[in-house]
């Protein structure tokens, strides 16, 4: 097991190096000279040359890349072109925590909603409720989440005046962003839970449990669910990636000052250094979560053999 964990963690190293390479290249792929792009249209050649020298753009690319890696490892992601503040400060001061908070709430909402719907549907297979819930889940899968957010705002904020339209911090401000973020994941988890539970309920050991007189509740919660939930773990992990992207949309719509909103603001302000930093941090988070999910999956399911 420890060997597996170590190996899985080692696997992330080449991926992280690759990610850092792509992020590093971003600045070099900008058409024309990146220093000119940063200095603005009005900058004179001397200014640009000074900037080039400052940014180390006159060195060989490989040297620049190694310098970039060394900087990242020491926790230096450069300085924002717009605000002039260190990128690390901008990200980790408050924004990082907000996005993580939002992502965790979204995951919780997705898991809780998804499990309830999935279990109810599976236990009441082919009932009207089952068909209705699965139809809703199907729609939940296809609905673009920025539109869903707008619909939620119209219904709960505009028409009913129950919840605030923007902001983050108060509990009532967190409801709509969490729902926006959680619904598509909930739909996927609900479908998956239902399918797995139905699969498991057909197996011999469940028949045995029933035969020895266990009640339906015990059969489902004690015997069936435990096995049915194993594949759901992977979905939760995959969903986390969707959630990080979802956070970009959610934060923009609800004016939440997290990393997602920062990415969009940096792109519109053409703050490449800031975009580099945020893209890097979000991707590292995603790679780390995926590794953790794989390890968790292995822990609960000893049968899996990942070469």
């Amino acid at each position, binding site marked *: 097991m420890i060997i597996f964990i170590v190996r899985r963690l080692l696997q992330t190293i080449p991926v992280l190096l690759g990610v850092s390479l792509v992020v590093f290249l971003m600045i070099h*792929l900008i058409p024309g000279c990146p220093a000119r792009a940063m200095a603005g249209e009005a900058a004179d050649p001397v200014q640009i040359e000074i900037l080039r020298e400052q940014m180390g753009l006159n060195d060989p690319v490989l040297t620049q890349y190694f310098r970039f890696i060394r900087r990242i490892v020491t926790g230096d992601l450069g300085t924002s072109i717009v605000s002039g503040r260190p990128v690390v400060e901008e990200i980790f001061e408050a924004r990082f925590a907000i996005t993580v908070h939002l992502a965790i709430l979204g995951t919780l909402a997705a898991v809780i909603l998804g499990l309830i719907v999935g279990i109810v549907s599976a236990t009441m297979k082919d009932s009207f409720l089952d068909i209705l819930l699965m139809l809703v889940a199907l729609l939940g899968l296809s609905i673009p989440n920025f539109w869903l957010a707008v619909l939620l705002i119209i219904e709960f904020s505009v028409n009913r005046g129950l919840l605030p339209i923007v902001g983050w911090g108060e509990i009532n401000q967190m409801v709509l962003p969490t729902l926006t973020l959680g619904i598509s994941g909930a739909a996927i988890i609900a479908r998956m839970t239902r399918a797995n539970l139905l699969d498991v309920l057909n197996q011999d050991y469940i028949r045995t449990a029933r035969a020895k007189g266990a009640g339906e509740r015990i059969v489902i919660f004690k015997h069936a669910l435990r096995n049915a939930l194993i594949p759901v773990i992977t979905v939760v992990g995959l969903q986390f990636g969707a959630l990080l992207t979802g956070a970009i949309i959610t934060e923009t719509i609800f004016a939440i000052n997290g990393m997602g909103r920062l990415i969009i603001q940096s792109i519109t302000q053409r703050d490449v250094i800031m975009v580099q930093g945020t893209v890097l941090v979000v991707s590292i988070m995603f790679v780390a979560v995926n590794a953790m999910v794989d390890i968790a999956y292995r822990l609960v399911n000893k049968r899996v053999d990942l070469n």
Partner: protein
Amino acid sequence: MSVSTKRKLKKIFKNRQLTLGGVIVILFILLAIFAPLIAPFDPLEQSMQRRLQAPSGEHIMGTDNLGRDVFSRIVYGTRVSLVVGIASTLMGGIVGVFFGVIAGYYGKAVDTVIMRATDILLAFPGILLALAIVAILGSGTEVVIIAVAVWAVPSFARIVRGSTLAVKKLEYIDAIRAVGAGDFRIIFLHILPNVLSPIIVQATLNVGGAIVSAAVLSFLGVGTQAPTPEWGSMVSTGRQFMLENPHLVLFPGLAIFLLVVGINLFGDGLRDHLEPKKTK
């Protein structure tokens, strides 16, 4: 019509997902092609006298903040969404299939390098890579197509690699090689045609995903730019006026939703039809 064609058609129509999805998709395609005939107004024509009107007999989906007819804009918006969805899928698909088939066919170092590259691309969650590309190249419909295409490459590569590995082991490939066919001939004439089904299914579903991604980029303000009618940016602009004019966000969002549901139904149905073994 011969008996066998009739039977084939019957089988297709019996697959309800495929039929329903197909009908929705065809309706949208017709909408895009005949946009000038269907749209009652010029999608760009502004009028201050008739701004922010609720849906009426004349403007069935109302007018926007610049007095443009929402229905006409949605009709023309179909063009942008379909073009972006199809073009980016074609671009990403071709590149992905190429690398996938090469990786699967040659194996060893080639395979390792290509697969690690897809690992790296997949390490950027969701549309993050597309956003990074937009950050580099600037916004606009063409950039959106490229960004969404790059996002599609790794999934195509992985699927095709898997299928290629399976086909490569079959005896007839050995037979063809024994006859003296070169790699190029084997790949393009004998392997690709046999991995076509998963490619078609993936391509269909990818069009849906690409349309949503493109709409998201435009919604966030970094995709297709004004005044081009695009559904995502219509929802985005409509957001500022939605307190009194919910129709501005309802209709364009509904258009995306319907088209994507149609494409996903069609794709799922296609999978059942082409790869019956894989369905539960």
